[in-house]
């Protein structure tokens, strides 16, 4: 199993945006969700998750609001903005192009 930090540069943003596209989540839930969906292949470290979340928030692609979590404690919930949705589309398209290209090369070799 590769280390989580092996995430391709910039893909963490894509993963976060994708994860938030369904519903608003707090940081912990985002990390858990990525881990679960990837079948424990991808583990997001707090050291990269929170800087990324704050960066995306500064960029205006996600927005945050404080709400009660499932445990009844106040937590910061992130959700996708309209601009974030567009960004997700373009990053998804980018990713598809990139991974296809890599696939072609890897399979030919």
């Amino acid at each position, binding site marked *: 199993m590769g280390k989580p930090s092996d995430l391709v540069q910039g893909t963490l943003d894509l993963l976060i945006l994708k994860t938030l596209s369904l519903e608003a989540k*707090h*940081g*912990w839930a985002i990390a858990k969700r990525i881990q679960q969906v990837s079948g424990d292949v991808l583990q997001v*470290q*707090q*050291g990269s998750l*929170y*800087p*990324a979340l*704050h*960066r995306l*928030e*500064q*960029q*205006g692609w996600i*927005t945050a609001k*404080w709400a009660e*979590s499932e*445990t009844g*404690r*106040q*937590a*910061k919930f992130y959700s996708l*903005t*309209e*601009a974030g949705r567009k960004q997700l589309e373009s990053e998804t398209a980018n990713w598809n192009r990139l991974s296809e290209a890599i696939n072609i090369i890897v399979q030919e070799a």
Partner: protein
Amino acid sequence: MRWLHKLLMQLRMLFRRNEESARLNDELQFHLEQQIAENMATGMHEEEARHAAMRSFGSPAVLRDQTRNTWSWNWLESLFRDARISARTLRRAPGFAVMAVVVMALCLGAATSLFTIARGVLLKSLPFRDPDKLVMVYEHFHGYDSNREAFNYNVVSPADYYDWRTQTHGFEDMAAWRWDKFNFSGEHAELPEVITAAAGTWNFFSVLGVNPVLGRIFYESEDHPGANRVVMLTWGLFQRRFGGDPSVIGKQIHLDANPYTVIGVLPQSFAYPDATVQVWVPYASGVTAEYLSYHDHHQSHVVARLKPNVSLQNAISQVEAVQHRLHMENLDKPVAEDAVSRPLLDDVVHDIKTPLVILLCAVGCMLFIGCLNVANLLIARAATRQKEIAIRGALGAGRVTLIRQQMVESLLICFAGGALGVLLSFVATKWLTSAWKDLPRTEAIHVDMSVLAFSFVLICLSALLAGLLPALLSTQKSAFVALHDSSRSVGGSLARTTLRRTLLTIEIAVTVVLLIAAGLLLKSFARIHDADLGATTTNVLTLHYDLPKRQYDQPEKVVAFNETLLESLRHMPGVRAVGVGSVVPGAGYGGDDVFTIPEHPPVQPGQDLPDAIYRMADPGYFTALQIPLLRGRFFTDHDRLNQSNYVIISRQLANQYFTNENPIGWHLHVPAWNSGLVDYEIIGVVGDTLYQADKPLKATMYFPVFAGYLDRDYTLIVRTAFDPLKFSLPVQKEIASLDPTLPMSEVLTMQQIIGESAENTSFSATILLSFALLSLLLAAVGLYGVLSYLVTQRTTEIGIRLALGAQREQVVRLMLGDGLRPALFGLVFGLLASIALTRLIQSMLFRTSPFDLWVFALVAAILLFVAAVACALPARRASRLDPMQALRTE
């Protein structure tokens, strides 16, 4: 929408930073709690779960910092932090802080002041419509002394101007103006005074695009000989004499006892050709039609406005063609072959450009020295903080962070100094503009946004210059070795000392250049002051008056007034001699005329005609001024009215045009003097005089005052037994008793007249000298600082040397050598640089070589002396060290 979102976000991050910080902590805490809860769910104890969660979480402080780094304004926050730290460290060393700030304030203040002036004078466009389209057009003589400015850009004759205007098509319009002077008095001939005036063609103000604030400009019909006399007032006179009362329009004032109707008032911003002009009259109204037809009476300045789609070259080549034709048609007269032009702004600031640029360079040098000095001080301080910096580095501060923090310190110093300097410059600019007599366009000089922007940029550059080198040096990899050092180090950092010595060498070299430039200018100033005018300058009072034609309309009346005046003054107690003439030596050019010598073969057409300055003199003129008679005789009382066709020539004229001949009894034919009706017999040769103390010698011819020329200016000369200024009131009273309406002006001693020509040189020289002295002081302080630092660094070493038996003198020699080496290197580099650079100020030097040995030697001596004094104190301190104590010090 996204930009709005981002903006709101940024505002929130700026203004609610603490709140956001708390929330970030809360968010991270929540994450930790979730992790603990999960760990407990897998069956861990609470304590165990907490530890496991903390382990996987890592350092919360680092995470918080990393996250905060993504926030906007983070740079601002760290800047504030650095500023806070720097301010605290500066407060702990107030001596250093105050000194550095004062140095920067002086340097930045001076730089801002000079930039304000240079910008106002040289860069701001003139307050006219489309000023870039305005040029001055001059006649251009190829021959004569073509190295002389006056002939390269020669003022224009009236007829040439009229021909240019009517026969060329490259300019939208051309206007002309000339200087004039009037006895001015109010409507009822009250309060007479002599004022400077200008006479401009009717289209002059429309060519410039200047509109009057009151009334109107001249009509074309008013610009003819014999037309109704009208006058426009400048704003200054309008306020001063008429209290700004608009009803002055239509009223009459008296100029030279003639009534003139006031038709307009010029705006306050209008100060062309300079601020001394009080009134404007039409160009042609006060003169004869014959005068306007002269091609060889050069006195007008021509302003032209280019047509939008015509190049200057095209336009001026048309003028050149016309002028060449005029030259060919008037081969027997001094009519220039060619015409030249220069932009109006260049023309206005022409004389001041070189001194101003030199002073700007000088102030730049001083600022440079100031920065190096602060850099030097910072290096010394960095040395004492080496351990602190090393510890910071060991704790993880990056090099950029360390450099930034030190840069912030120099930024703080420069900003404090800059703010103080800008305040200083307000005062300094005001003082400079009022004290600098020949500075044109003072009305355009004031501090504005672009000046402040300039200062800001200058401050930042200074901070960079002063801070970067020390910061780079103290954060080098090797700098962290400080932590390995034992607390007792022997000998200082070599790199640091070398850098400080290099900075000092540069500082001293630049100082030497400044000192030499100032020295040369001062010497030049002294030369002007001591210049041998060829006439006495002690105990001579001069006084200016002119006899208006309206009142003194007969040669007999003119002669009678002058004679009566001289006679009454001659008997005044304490008066040694009196005389009257047109201009005295040292008081200016006056004017020149070409002449021919009928006894000589005629000058070939196309060759340059002989040319000399003209003067009027009475029989007593030469005796009063102690100008020696070399041959023949002076004028006598009998050389008067129509028996006065005599001329006296100067030795220069005799040498130039009568080689190996005795000129006495020969004649001069002067076409422009008295309409050239008669030839003047040469009756005497007198010693040479200078027309201006800082100008070369020029051939001169003297005509008798008692010929009774009408409408002339006179200078009265009174040589006295003691302080001539004591005579100014009695003499003026004497004149007033003869004619109470006659205003007098320029009551000056000969010393004062010379002083006026020296004044401009002396002003630039004084300013430059003060910059140079300040630089010298800075260099001395730098030298002292470096050597003191070296002594402290080498205390242990010196202690060992002393303990091993070194003599005190040896220690002094060792330290002096250390300190004087950069001074010597700097001196040599400075002298070499001066040899290369002083040529640039040659045009400002009068009878002083740019390589004047005395100045170079004196500067070298002063510098070495100051350097020795600056080094002697620390060196002495080193030799007085108690070896035991020195060995024990840390």
